[in-house]
């Protein structure tokens, strides 16, 4: 390790302030004592910040443990006349530091969980765009896996788009869904049923030939769902449904 940075130095000073304060007021030298609340909060904050900065928890724990090596010579000098007192003081302070090290792991885990949750939420928002591709036609390309949570999200977003744009047709494109299993099929049938209640017809596009073969073998009844092989064919069907068609300019 190189020489400590300015931030590290500030952290150490703040850490020592809170540690001394805690030790002066604590009834017993355990980290759960109310007197150590300031220290605990500070450590959680540091560990969290370091987790977000990409430090491993072991690096943060090493930072905490380094106090052990620092205070042992100081205590030895201070209590040079009383080896027993020296031993007990080293033990007390050592225990506190050990408990703090454990605390940093917890704080690290919590901070990482928060990062993961936020990323999931961000992905969920990105993953279900609804596009108005023609008057009264909305389209939603589905990309990736469809678990329970995404299925709910797809349902909400699509129904919202249908009602917002007064759509008569909604196209759901599943080209980029890796596997259409019975749960995904069930989710699709539910979306279709709900959209019908809002007066919109759903066209599902992009089943691959492999998906079609597998769905037939699974014996899933999708006959009540309008499907088209490609997005292009789906759009043509949507326009036909609205009594429109695309023609050459003559």
């Amino acid at each position: 390790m190189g020489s400590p940075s300015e931030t590290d130095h500030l952290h150490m000073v703040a850490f020592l302030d809170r540690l001394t304060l805690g030790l002066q007021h604590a009834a017993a030298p355990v980290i759960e004592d109310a007197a150590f609340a300031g220290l605990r909060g500070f450590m959680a904050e540091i560990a969290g910040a370091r987790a977000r900065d990409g430090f491993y928890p072991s690096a943060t724990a090493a930072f905490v443990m380094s106090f052990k090596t620092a205070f042992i010579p100081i205590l030895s000098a201070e209590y040079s006349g009383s080896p027993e007192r020296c031993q007990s003081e080293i033990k007390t302070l050592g225990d506190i530091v050990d408990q703090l090290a454990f605390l940093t792991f917890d704080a690290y885990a919590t901070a990482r969980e928060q990062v993961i949750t936020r990323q999931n939420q961000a992905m969920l928002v990105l993953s279900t765009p609804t596009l108005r591709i023609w008057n009264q036609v909305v389209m939603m390309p589905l990309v990736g896996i469809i678990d329970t949570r995404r299925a709910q999200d797809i349902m909400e977003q699509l129904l919202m788009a249908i009602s917002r744009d007064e759509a008569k047709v909604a196209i759901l494109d599943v080209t980029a869904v890796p596997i259409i299993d019975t749960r995904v099929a069930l989710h699709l049938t539910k979306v279709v049923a709900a959209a019908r209640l809002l007066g919109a017809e759903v066209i599902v596009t992009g089943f691959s030939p492999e998906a079609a073969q597998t769905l037939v073998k699974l014996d899933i009844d999708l006959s009540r769902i309008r499907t088209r092989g490609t997005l292009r064919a789906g759009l043509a069907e949507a326009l036909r449904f609205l009594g429109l068609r695309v023609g050459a300019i003559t």
Partner: protein
Amino acid sequence: MTEETKFAFSIHQEYDVYHAQQRALDFARDTGFRRAEIYRLATVVTELCNNLVFHTQRGGLFTMRLQHRSGRWGIELTVEDDGPGILDLDLAMSDGFSTVHGLGSGLPGSRRLMDEFHIESKPGVGTKVIAWLRQ
């Protein structure tokens, strides 16, 4: 090819299922399965692993390996749990029956998709499915 290659995944939550699904797609592709078979296999993996998530409290174990059976190479899937078990296996293997408001096609459909399919279950002890798809 060798029978040594084996993958084992513990399945508890939905994202475990999609991890297993992805690995099954990769494994079948790498071992030279055709597109339709790759899709079939990954579908069965998804169906069986979904059962672990939605029918048991503690999930279960999914394993996949290359296996030689009656002179052919294939992939063997094993899905095992210590969940509630299936009370009426014949009913569970029939189309349209579901205890969780599903479509009821998962187990019977999986049997149709695989070349060999064996299921055993004891209420209160657990369920084990062994299935095999030839290359």
